[in-house]
């Protein structure tokens, strides 16, 4: 197991945002975590990355406990997070932003190659090479954040809603890129995604979170077949069916 999470629990002051979470990521797997708003997905990734501290439980990364470590230490071990909400360095150029991703790396040549590579994925970043990242459009900033994480040469890449604000084309491409990264470097991926259809289509294993707990875990393929999950996360299969006398009542499905 690359990552093994045991009974992890995190509080924000008096609020328990995540309780008794067990989850594992095997080498070279792409693992998707789905769940409604406020389910605790971001909390999970942030706890794993050392951004916040858990109250109890363990997170073993490559056999060593990482819970409660500082985020920079976790990142240096190869567990790299693309956080929710585009955290770019607003007053650094796009290039310096990318270079910051490779901050802890020593292999200069490989870094140069990787930069060329992300510029190929996101040609826009090459066009805006010397612009302050704070002035980029929302989607462009998301590209910077993802590219920067890739440049850290992660062993396990954690992405919090990578498709947020990206065009449909890029959304599909992102998952293509994720797969390519995995295939070429063996990097495992843990991804939180609202776009469940895409995530389940490209992921290997899936977890469903509700109200701070894992409520279902299976292979993505198996999850896709489950009726209630199709209902809740895949929009019942089709579009939103506004027309006609479609179900206009709110059917928030939660496991309690």
């Amino acid at each position: 197991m690359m990552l093994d999470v045991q009974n992890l629990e995190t509080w924000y002051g008096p609020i328990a945002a995540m309780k008794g979470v067990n989850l594992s990521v095997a080498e070279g797997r792409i693992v998707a975590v789905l769940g409604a708003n406020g389910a605790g997905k971001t909390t999970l990734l942030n706890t794993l990355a050392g951004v916040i501290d858990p109250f109890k439980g363990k997170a073993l990364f490559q056999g060593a406990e990482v819970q409660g470590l500082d985020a920079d230490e976790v990142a240096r071990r190869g567990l790299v997070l693309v956080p929710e909400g585009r955290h770019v360095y607003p007053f650094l150029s796009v290039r310096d932003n990318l270079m910051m991703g490779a901050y802890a790396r020593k292999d200069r040549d490989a870094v140069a190659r990787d930069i060329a590579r992300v510029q190929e994925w996101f040609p826009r970043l090459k066009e805006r090479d010397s612009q302050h990242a704070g002035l980029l459009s929302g989607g462009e900033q998301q590209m910077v954040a993802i590219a920067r994480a890739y440049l850290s040469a992660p062993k396990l890449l954690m992405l919090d809603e990578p498709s947020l604000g990206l065009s449909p084309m890029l959304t599909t491409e992102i998952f293509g890129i994720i797969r390519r990264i995995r295939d070429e470097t063996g990097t495992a991926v843990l991804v939180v995604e609202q776009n469940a259809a895409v995530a389940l289509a490209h992921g290997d294993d899936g977890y469903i979170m509700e109200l701070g707990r894992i409520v279902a875990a299976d292979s993505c393929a198996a999850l896709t077949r489950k009726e209630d999950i199709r209902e809740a996360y895949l929009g019942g299969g089709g579009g939103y069916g506004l027309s006609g006398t479609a179900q206009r009542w709110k059917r928030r499905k939660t496991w309690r």
Partner: protein
Amino acid sequence: MGRQLRAWRARMNTAWEVFAQVTVNGIAVGAIYALVAMGIVLIHKATEVLNFAHGDLLVLSAFSAWALITHVGLPFWAVVPLVGAGIGVIAYGLDAVIVRRIAGQPQFAGVMLTIAMAFMIRGAVSMGFGPESQSYDTPWTGQTSELGGVAIGNLSLVIMGVSLGIAAALWLFFRHTRLGVAMQAASQNQLAAHLNGVRVKRLNSLVWALAGVTAAIAGMFLAPLSLVDTSLWLITLKALAAIVLGGFGSLPGALIGGILIGLIEQYAGVYLPDGSRDIAPYLVLIVVLILRPRGILGDAHGRRV
């Protein structure tokens, strides 16, 4: 005609001499303000903490240098690296033990904390070294050079050189080294810096150490110009004015701002009515900020929505 012309020329010559002298004085004083300002900018640029205790570190270093020179009997040259290193270590400790704890709190908390630290350092210096003013000599004390009819203290020349050198070094450091870029990054988005594996805490303490060294240098060279005295911390106010005038976060800005404040003071002190000297820099500051809200060289862009 001829005589009148000659008299006029002579008057012009003295007027010109005074002007030249005043300008040189302004630059010399401005270099001091700039030197102090850069230490404050350094910390702000890298950690977004506005360090109100900088002036007091400077006082601490001046008193330490005095103690080492007069009580221990060390030569000035031995004292400079010793005090520089000592204050650097103390500043590192201040960050590591105190300032670090409020990382993530709004900027205000940092201002309050450094004000509190300033009080503590000021108190500790009085208790440790005694409250009286002191003095010591540098290798340049009492020496004056003359450049084209303008007198300038050698110590002032040294300070100008040191300020320029530090400005250049810091500018290069931030612009072109990995560590320098990482420091800027850490101040712009600390979370992202952590996630990129930047050891933000250590980096911040390092910056404090660096700023401590500049404070020490400023203190050791400045004190002999006036006296070793706890009120030297007041220079922080002038330095802040310089920083804001030049634009927060800009090292060249701090240099320019410092020298401008020095010049304004001198020109106002000599050419404007008595009493205007002490408010002239502040009036200029207000006007400049109304015209250029982010100072002369400050970061220009606001937030995208």
